[in-house]
């Protein structure tokens, strides 16, 4: 049993990503979408904490949202995997429930 968490807010603007990571369980997946994709950026004031949490959960980024915002895959934190909408659907199907951190 595991959960897909989605986060759609910038971690520099709101506490949503941090709250999500604080509640996600080992084996869960966290998919960053919309403005949430900024949470996947390396070299930021948030990267270290996201990397640390990434040891317990799998981190994904919605690639079309990253591309829209000019975030190249070379700018991502190691281990953050890009998926397209089809991959998003697969993650929803694979995990037992989806929880949105709005």
């Amino acid at each position: 049993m595991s959960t897909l968490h989605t986060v759609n807010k910038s971690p520099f603007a709101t506490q949503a990503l941090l709250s999500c990571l604080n509640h996600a369980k080992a084996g869960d997946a966290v998919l960053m979408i919309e403005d949430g994709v900024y949470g996947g950026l390396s070299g930021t004031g948030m990267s270290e904490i996201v990397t640390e949490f990434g040891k317990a959960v799998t981190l994904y980024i919605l690639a079309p949202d990253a591309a829209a915002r000019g975030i190249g895959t070379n700018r991502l934190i190691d281990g953050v995997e890009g998926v397209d909408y089809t991959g998003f659907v697969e993650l929803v199907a694979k995990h037992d429930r989806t929880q949105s951190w709005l």
Partner: protein
Amino acid sequence: MAKTKKFLYVNRKAPYGTIYALESLEVVLIGAAFEQDVALAFVDDGVFQLAKGQNTDGIGVKNFSPTFRALGDYDVQKLFVERESLEERGLSEADLIEVVYEDEDDDWAEKSAIHVVGRAEIADIMADADVVLSF
């Protein structure tokens, strides 16, 4: 008929500044009629929804906090409030409104529906739900 599902309503937003708290409560009240397993989690600013002594006369917006008290009558018995969220906001259980229900398994004794629990337990409750609705 389908088996009973565990519905979890997650409330993370403060009341009045936005309508999410009120419209979340409206879903809970309707959902209570569906005979599913219902629980509410109050996390982050969501804990402010249960603050005592709300008086909205000065802002022209309806005070909906008394409606929480009605939840017991709808047989909603599980309002989980995150302790860490309370503490960060300088609040304790004494600052929250009372929500009670009558326990039919215990000679209809009146019990509190509000349960202050730690973050790890909130995470367990989230991981145990079938359907999570976020507000």
